[in-house]
Every structure is written in structure tokens, then in C-alpha cells.
């Protein structure tokens, strides 16, 4: 006589909107189990009844082989009394109760859907909204939880009989796929001109023709509207730059397929990580070395050896790419400094000649993610589509729920509860009002989606950050200030699921120090709860404060003054190029006000970039440092010697060496390389000394300057030669986009320490 058992199973993690219930249904049917499965506010709730081995098999399948897009964090099982046989059904979602269900990120069109898209016999042939449980829009269309069609912007589209049949068929790939639709019942594509006139004909074919003839096209994608132009058309790319008021920052290029990417960029060698990054369901923009003779207009990425490329991630992108047959620029549609335009009314303000758009609303604006490749591994630069809002599981618990407000530029926020941290998508510069609105609105949206009611609010120590000011307006939450670079190192620790203590190396732009000066080249002995400043780059003034960040030549003046005293540098190009303003800035350095004092590594890169004639002024954050890295000769391995005096890295010696070589007529490429290697060696020496003094064996690397992979590689190798284990960012960026995670981790650690 077979024994019959019944179990209540609760599954938590990213389990909604990823085909989890159909998957459970399939397993249950295969094992002849009866019962129900439903979404609720905390995840997926299953009741199964049948032979013990069959119930165990289902639990194992849930744990070990969940659907591709699912992330199972916890499975809890509770035995209950059997109620008698029956069938297995998917039942209505339960909306009451707590809302800890996790919302999954948007996923690129899967191979099955892609095959349908280009199959003339399929009823969704060339339908730009084809999707299934394995792919399609998620986070961008969710208005509330639990994840159901009624809680998405697909609410307005009633399924036709054919779609409904697929939706209800447990054996179908579209079983309970919330955005399921077809040409008969779903969203519709239109192409219209800037005055709203709808253009006749097939919208995709007409749009591709417009691109081919040099027009600027707005394309409504997953997380917002992009602007597109033919990437080979110099005139069109230049026009796009002018209309967007975009300085020199590179545009991303969407290539039709992997073969097309190979024509643009170097993909040779052990590049399996590159291919995985390009073709995976997240589809970020991947920064790759450009091939010589790559058929891309010069003004796509001026002054940049790299190119940001991505593969199509929506059916519409695929259709457009195939129709055009060559790469096109795809850049966020926004006004300079504003977030990506995701509402139709915002998109109308875009300076496009035509609009390829549709009637499925986007609820949450979301930029494309950006990654770099470091030693065949993806390193996040901007974490957005495909990643956000996937929670980051941590090996410790937050005693109280936390809201961390991040930094100012490249802002993100983080909500943490239990053993998870949810980091928002990249939002941008909070000084922009629309970005600040997206930030404040995002906090409300995430609180609801994830059911996190924070009790602690973390902010940077910088009193003028708008995130700090926002944090301090929240009533009833306990505020906690965390130093910027401690947050950077804590972010790297949390990213790796570690708690320290470590030797933290934060090479960064600028951040508010505990002494009121601007830090940015810091060695910290840190764990999650606290830190000590164990070393730093030689401080110099920033003449003209914020202007010195926008005008790297001023940092050259500051470092020259510091390195040589008030001498004459008239033979240097940087002085000649800026001679009309040089005396005024020199006078500031001699008589004051010389500006805030900084130990920033980013500003040191700025100074060297200006000295070498790479760049005197910047149009985007970190531009001089990026271009200096690109200028460096990869064949030059030697570095300038730098003294580490006590805890201070004498960076002025680097400046003297750079100027010496410059005066001797050395090539800027060689000087740039020697600078990188010299700084890396000095930082490694200083870190090794701290490690020796403290007995620490692990180093954690963070701060925006580590986006520079030449420097990163040299520092990593040096630290390893000293026997140190090195922690790098993997899930959140090393730049200020990762600050909020670090802040939350610090708050959790302080809570645990005081418990």
C-alpha cells in the first residue's frame, strides 16, 4: 500500500515572471502529483500530494533545476495532512499578506521566440512583441506585485483566444507568460514623423530606410526610447551628437549578430567570456577593442580605442537590424543630463526625424547596462537593464531593514532586508530634477515591490550631495552617515560576500573625507563596520574646486606647483595651450584660495592627461583618465619610481618624472604607460606595507579609477606577487554606482555589532 504525503512548499527568490509556476506544474504532472501552485506576495507557494519519493523529486527539481531566469534563494517545506487525490492546478495569485516576491529583470529575446519571429509560417512572424516565459519585458512593465498581467502595463491588452489558449496550456512555452500577445491582440508598432504624422507602409522597413538615408530615428525599446542612426554614416552621427548636445562621450553600437561584432571589434583569443557577455540574456553594452579599419564613423567614439557594442535584445531591435543589415548607433534618448525618456510624452521632446514607437507603456525607465572585460571576465560599469532589480544575496542578515541613498553622480539606491540587498538601476546625476524624481519615485516603487520598510537610512558624509539631503528629510528613519571610500570598500566586500577586515584600496574621483578634505586615493584598513585611513596619495589643491574637475589642465597646474614650486613651465604644452587662464590659476595656487585639498587618484590622472596633451577639459566624467589609459603604449612595462613615505604616496615624484620625460621628448604613449605602472607599483608597495603591519592577507579594490583595466591589471598582479588575495567587483560597479550597496552593508554590520 503506497503511502501518500502532502507538503506545503514556499519558494523565495526571483521566481515570479520567469515561468516558475508552469515549470512546477510540468514537474508535478510528470510525477503524478496533485495539488496547486500560486504566486503570492513572497514568491511561489506550492501544495503537493503524492508518494513521498515523488514529492521529494519535485522539491529537488525546484532547488536544483529551476527555469533559466529564476534565482532560488530559499525553499521551505512544511508537511501537512493529505486531503485526497485530485489534479494539479495553477491557481489565482494571492495578493494579500507580505510582499517579498522578487521582481525579475528584463530578458533578451530567447532563441525560440527569435525563430518564430523570422518564421513566415508562424502566427507571430515579424511581430515585434513576441515573448515567452523565458524572455521579454519584466521589471520595466511591472506596476505592482504580485507579478501578474493585471500588475503590468500589459493590463490594457486583452488576450485573444489563441493567446489565451497558450497562456492556459501547461505544456506551452507561454503558459502564464504575463506579456504574451500576438498581432491580433497585442501592442502595435507605428512609425510617425516628429509632427505626429503616421507614415504608411511597414514601420520596420520604412524606419530602416530612414536610417539608411541618414535620418535620426527614435526607437521605443524596453526601458525607454533610444536614438538611432546608421553607425557608418559620419554625417548622421555628427548630427545626432549636435542634437543631443553630447560632447565626446562614445555612443553604443548595436550589431545585427555576433559575426557583425567580429567585424567591428577584436574578439580573438580566449574570449569565451566576451561571447557570453554579448549573447547572454542580459545583453549589456560590452566595451571591446576596436578593430583597425572598423567600418564605424569616427564620431561614434572619438578619442577612444574601444567601442561599446551590444546585440539586439528585443524583437524590434532584431527586425530593425536585419532590415538595415548593418550596425546602428543606439544611444539613450534623453536631453543632456536627463534620464532616458521612457514615457511617450517625454519622447516627443527628442530631436528625432521619425519615431518608431508602440502602445505598450514603459512603467520604469531603464538604461542599457555597460560592462568591460577584464581577463575574460565581465566587470560591471553601469548596472541597469538585465541586472536590476535582481536582489544580491548576502551571507549575513540585516537586523533592521535599510535604505542606502548612494552618492550623487551615477546614483543608485539600495534597499536591504533579511539577507538580501536590492540595488536600483543606474539613475544618474541627482542634480538633474528628473533624475531626482526617478530616485525618489524609485525608492517608493521598490519599497512596495519588495515589501521593504526601512528603519535605517544611510547617506554619504558629503553634506551637499542631494542624496544626503534626501536621506535627512525622511522622518522616522534612523540616519547613518558612511564615509564615501569606506562605502566603496564595503561595496567590494559585499559584492564578494565577505566581511573583512581587508586592506581596502579605493582609487577614485572625489569623495568627502572624515577630515573635511576631499579624498580619492585611499588605503583603508576596513571591515564592513568600520575603517582606519592607513595611507593616501599626496594631497594637492583643486584650484577652482569643481572647475578643476571639468578642466584637468588646472590639476596639471596644481601638481606642477606642488612638485616644482612656483617655477616657470612655459616650455610645457599645457601652459602654452592654456596661457590666457594659466596666470590666474597659478595665482590662486600661490596666494589662495587654492581650493579644496584632495588626495584623489582621478585628479592625478587628469593632471597627467593634461600634461601629455591628451585632454585639457572634459565633457564627461572621467574622460581624461579614460583617454590617458587608451593612449598608454601596451608594450611599455616599466614604471616611474615613487616613494611611499610613511603612509603617503609621493605622487609628485610621478609628476616630476612625467615632466622630465616630456622635456626629453619622450613619446606621450610611453610616458602614459610608465605613469600607470609607476602609480600601480607605488599603491602595491603601500598596500603591502599595510598588510605586513596588520597581518591582513586580503585586499579589496574599489573606486571609479579601477574602471581603468590597465591600472587594475598592474595592481592586481602586484598584490598577488605579495601573496595577497584580491577582491574585485563582480556584481555592482566599482564606481559610485556601487556605493549604495556598500552603505547598506555598513549599516547592517553596525547593527549586528551593536546587537
Amino acid at each position, binding site marked *: 500500500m503506497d503511502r501518500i504525503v502532502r507538503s506545503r512548499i514556499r519558494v523565495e527568490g526571483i521566481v515570479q515572471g520567469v515561468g516558475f509556476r508552469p515549470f512546477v506544474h510540468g514537474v508535478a504532472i510528470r510525477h503524478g502529483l496533485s495539488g496547486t501552485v500560486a504566486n503570492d506576495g513572497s514568491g511561489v507557494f506550492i501544495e503537493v500530494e503524492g508518494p513521498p519519493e515523488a514529492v521529494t523529486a519535485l522539491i529537488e527539481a525546484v532547488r536544483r533545476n529551476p527555469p533559466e531566469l529564476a534565482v532560488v534563494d530559499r525553499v521551505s517545506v512544511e508537511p501537512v495532512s493529505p486531503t485526497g487525490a485530485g489534479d494539479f492546478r495553477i491557481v489565482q495569485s494571492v495578493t494579500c499578506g507580505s510582499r517579498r516576491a522578487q521582481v525579475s529583470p528584463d530578458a533578451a529575446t530567447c532563441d525560440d521566440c527569435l525563430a518564430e519571429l523570422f518564421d513566415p509560417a508562424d502566427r507571430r512572424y515579424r511581430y515585434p512583441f513576441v515573448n515567452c516565459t523565458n524572455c521579454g519585458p519584466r521589471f520595466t512593465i511591472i506596476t505592482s506585485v504580485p507579478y501578474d498581467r493585471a500588475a503590468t502595463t500589459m493590463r490594457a491588452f486583452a488576450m485573444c483566444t489563441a493567446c489565451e489558449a497558450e497562456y492556459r496550456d501547461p505544456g506551452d512555452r507561454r503558459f502564464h507568460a504575463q506579456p504574451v500577445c500576438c498581432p491580433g491582440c497585442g501592442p502595435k508598432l507605428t512609425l510617425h514623423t516628429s509632427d505626429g504624422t503616421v507614415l504608411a507602409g511597414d514601420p520596420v522597413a520604412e524606419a530602416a530606410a530612414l536610417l539608411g538615408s541618414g535620418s535620426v530615428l527614435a526607437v521605443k525599446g524596453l526601458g525607454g526610447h533610444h536614438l538611432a542612426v546608421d553607425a557608418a554614416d559620419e554625417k548622421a552621427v555628427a548630427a545626432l551628437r549636435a542634437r543631443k*548636445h553630447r560632447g565626446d562621450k562614445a555612443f553604443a553600437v548595436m550589431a545585427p549578430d555576433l559575426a557583425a561584432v567580429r567585424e567591428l571589434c577584436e574578439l580573438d583569443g580566449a574570449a569565451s567570456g566576451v561571447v557570453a557577455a554579448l549573447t547572454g540574456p542580459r545583453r549589456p553594452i560590452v566595451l571591446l577593442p576596436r578593430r583597425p579599419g572598423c567600418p564605424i564613423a569616427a564620431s561614434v567614439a572619438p578619442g577612444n580605442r574601444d567601442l561599446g557594442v551590444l546585440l539586439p535584445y528585443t524583437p524590434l531591435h532584431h527586425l530593425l537590424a536585419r532590415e538595415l543589415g548593418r550596425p546602428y548607433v543606439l544611444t539613450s534618448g534623453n*536631453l*543632456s*543630463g*536627463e534620464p532616458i525618456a521612457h514615457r511617450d510624452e517625454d519622447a516627443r*521632446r527628442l530631436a528625432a526625424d521619425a519615431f518608431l514607437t508602440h502602445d505598450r507603456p514603459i512603467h520604469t525607465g531603464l538604461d542599457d547596462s555597460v560592462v568591460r572585460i577584464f581577463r575574460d571576465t565581465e566587470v560591471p560599469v553601469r548596472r541597469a537593464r538585465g541586472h536590476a532589480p535582481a536582489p544580491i544575496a548576502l551571507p549575513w542578515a540585516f537586523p533592521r531593514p535599510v535604505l542606502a541613498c548612494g*552618492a*550623487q*553622480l*551615477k546614483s543608485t539606491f539600495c534597499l536591504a532586508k533579511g539577507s538580501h540587498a536590492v540595488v536600483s538601476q543606474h539613475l544618474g*546625476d*541627482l*542634480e*538633474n*530634477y*528628473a533624475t*531626482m524624481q526617478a530616485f525618489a519615485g524609485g525608492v517608493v516603487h521598490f519599497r512596495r515591490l519588495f515589501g521593504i520598510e526601512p528603519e535605517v537610512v544611510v547617506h554619504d558624509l*558629503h*553634506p*551637499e*550631495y*542631494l542624496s544626503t*539631503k534626501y536621506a535627512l528629510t525622511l522622518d522616522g528613519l534612523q540616519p547613518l552617515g558612511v564615509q564615501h571610500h569606506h562605502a566603496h570598500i564595503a561595496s567590494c566586500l559585499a559584492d564578494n560576500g565577505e566581511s573583512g577586515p581587508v586592506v581596502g584600496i579605493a582609487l*577614485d*574621483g*572625489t*569623495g*568627502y573625507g572624515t577630515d573635511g578634505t*576631499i579624498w580619492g586615493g585611499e588605503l583603508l584598513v576596513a571591515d564592513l563596520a568600520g575603517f582606519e585611513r592607513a595611507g593616501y596619495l599626496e594631497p594637492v589643491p*583643486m584650484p*577652482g*574646486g*569643481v*572647475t*578643476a*574637475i571639468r578642466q584637468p589642465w588646472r590639476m596639471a597646474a596644481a601638481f606642477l606647483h606642488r612638485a616644482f614650486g612656483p617655477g616657470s613651465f612655459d616650455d610645457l604644452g599645457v601652459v602654452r595651450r592654456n596661457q590666457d*587662464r594659466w*596666470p*590666474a*590659476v*597659478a*595665482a*590662486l595656487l*600661490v*596666494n*589662495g*584660495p587654492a*581650493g*579644496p585639498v584632495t588626495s584623489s587618484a*582621478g585628479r592625478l590622472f587628469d593632471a597627467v592627461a593634461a600634461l601629455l596633451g591628451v585632454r585639457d577639459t572634459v565633457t564627461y*566624467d572621467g574622460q581624461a583618465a579614460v583617454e590617458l589609459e587608451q593612449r598608454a603604449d601596451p608594450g611599455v612595462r616599466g614604471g616611474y619610481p615613487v616613494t611611499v613615505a610613511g603612509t603617503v604616496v609621493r605622487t609628485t615624484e610621478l609628476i616630476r618624472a612625467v615632466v622630465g620625460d616630456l622635456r626629453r621628448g619622450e613619446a606621450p604613449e610611453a610616458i602614459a604607460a610608465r605613469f600607470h605602472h609607476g602609480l600601480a607599483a607605488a599603491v602595491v608597495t603601500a598596500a603591502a606595507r599595510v598588510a605586513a603591519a596588520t597581518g591582513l592577507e586580503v585586499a579589496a579594490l574599489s573606486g*571609479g579609477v579601477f574602471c581603468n583595466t590597465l591600472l587594475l591589471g598592474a595592481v592586481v598582479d602586484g598584490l598577488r606577487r605579495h601573496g595577497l588575495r584580491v577582491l574585485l567587483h563582480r556584481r555592482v560597479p566599482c*564606481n*559610485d554606482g556601487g556605493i549604495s550597496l556598500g552603505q547598506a552593508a555598513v549599516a547592517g554590520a553596525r547593527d549586528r555589532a551593536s546587537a
Partner: protein
Amino acid sequence: LAHGSGGKATRNLIDAIFLEAFRNPLLAPLEDGATLALGSSRAVFTTDAFVVSPLFFPGGDIGDLAVNGTVNDLAVCGARPLYLSAGFILEEGFPIGDLRRIVASMAAAAEMAGVSIVTGDTKVVQRGKADGCYVTTAGVGVVDRPATLSISAAQPGDAVIVSGPIGEHGVAIMLARGELGIEADTLSDTAPLNGLVADLLDTLPTQVRTLRDATRGGVATVLNEVATASGVTVVMDEESVPVRPEVTGVCELLGIDPLYVACEGRLVAVVDGEHAERAVDIMRSHPAGAEAAIIGWVGEDPPGLVLLRTAFGGTRIVDMLVGDPLPRIC
């Protein structure tokens, strides 16, 4: 030091120390002066202390600055300034010639503003205990028209007007300190505004909602106070804010925003939108307002914020600074 810069730190200091200790209904609104009932008439009473360095600067000195500052505080409260007091704290050894110069310029400024300095006091402190000369003033003015002016009276639809180019006093002072190594002929804008205010209020007595002289913290700080007190948003248009190129140049050199730089002879007026053009015309026909301009508008949402529409069509938050501005880009 940040506590004196006119931003949020100053406001916090005032709230924590002074409002707490002196708590009374006349002080609480924190206008530039207190309006008092004296018998059947109403008067405004204000006081100020001046610690400028250097004492003499292009376009003025601590003397006329003290008179104009007090006159302007009375004027923007809707009063006709009448009488001033003057107190001097002198450092031992302060040159008598300098004192004569200061006093003479006070007399001239008083004459120009049509007020009398009717009482005073002088103290001498030891060498090193003061920076040459400090001046304190008090002023009384009479309110002879129905006053509705208030920092909390701005309404959606109102226009925001500035009476002339901004930031000149602050920049003139920075240049006069002689450290910048640049030559620029920027004069302080120090001037009495009571005539201009009288013209404005004679014609538009109830249409003018708020008047403020944009001293410490500049136009940005005044507008933040208006937005907070009135529960409105203020949207400025970057291209319409009058700033002289020399001021822009010095501000760029030092990395500061002219919107936060002090003026001593400029006022910010919030005026019923329907009468904004008229208000500008009235200001422009007075010498102190020759370059008056509408710089923005009052809106409803979000309350308490000041925004700046930039030349590229973006919208930047112009917030109340907490202290000395430090770079916040990473």
C-alpha cells in the same frame, strides 16, 4: 565659518540658538525686519552687523554697505526707512583717516537714501581682537501703505524678478582681497533700494507678493527661502538671469555659482504674473533697477524646490547650500 555664509547652516544656527532663546511672534517669521505697532502707526525695526574684509573695495566700503544694507532690509519689508543708528567696534590703532572715510561715506549714503543717522556708539578693543573696524546698525522705518509683503506670499503663476545683474558685490570683494591675480573692473553693487521699492509699491501695492534683498547666499538662497516658506516651486530660466561677463569669469575661475554670490543692491521680487511686465518697467525706469529682468516663474509642484532650466533644456535643482560648496561630482 559655514554658519555665516547665509545657507542652511546659518538657518540652522538661527533656529537652534536665537529663535529658541528669544521666542516671540514678531521674530518667528524671520523676515528681514520686524513689523511693530507703535500707537496708531506701524513701523519696521531691523538690525545688522558688518564685518567685511577689505573695508574699502571698488564701488564702496563698509560705511555705505552698512547704511544701504539696513535701508534695504527696511525697504523690502515695505517700510519707508527713516532713522538709523551706527555702532563702531574699532581695533586699537585703526587709522583715524580710514575712520573718517568710512563715516563720510555713511553720511553720503544716508543722504542718498534719505535717512538720518540719529544715534551711535563706539568701542575700541585691543589690537588683534578685531579686524580693523566693525560696524553695527539698526534702522527704523514707517509703513505707510497696506502691507501684504511676505516671504510666504508667493503663489503659482507669479513672476520672479531680479532688479539687476547678480553677484557683483561678492565678486568685487573677492577681487579686492587682491589674491586672485586677475584684473577685472567689477564694482560692488551696493546701493539703496528704498526708492525703487517705493516706486514699485506705489503702483503695484498688492500685486507685489515678496521682496528680498539678495545678500548672503545670493539669489539662490532667497529663492529657496521663498519656495520653502510659500510651499511653491520656483523655476528659473538660466538664460534670462542677468550676470555680467566679468562676474561669470571670476565665478568660473573659483568654481562657484553666481546664483549663490552676494549682492548688496539687488532685490528679488515675486510679483503677480499678470503685472510682471509692468513691474519690470517700473524697476527699469529707476536707476537702481535699470537692468531688471524676469528670471523665472512660480509653480505649484514640487513645493519647496528651486529649479533652473538650463540652456540645453535640462532642469537642474538649485538647492540650499548647507555650507561651503565642495565639489560633489566624483
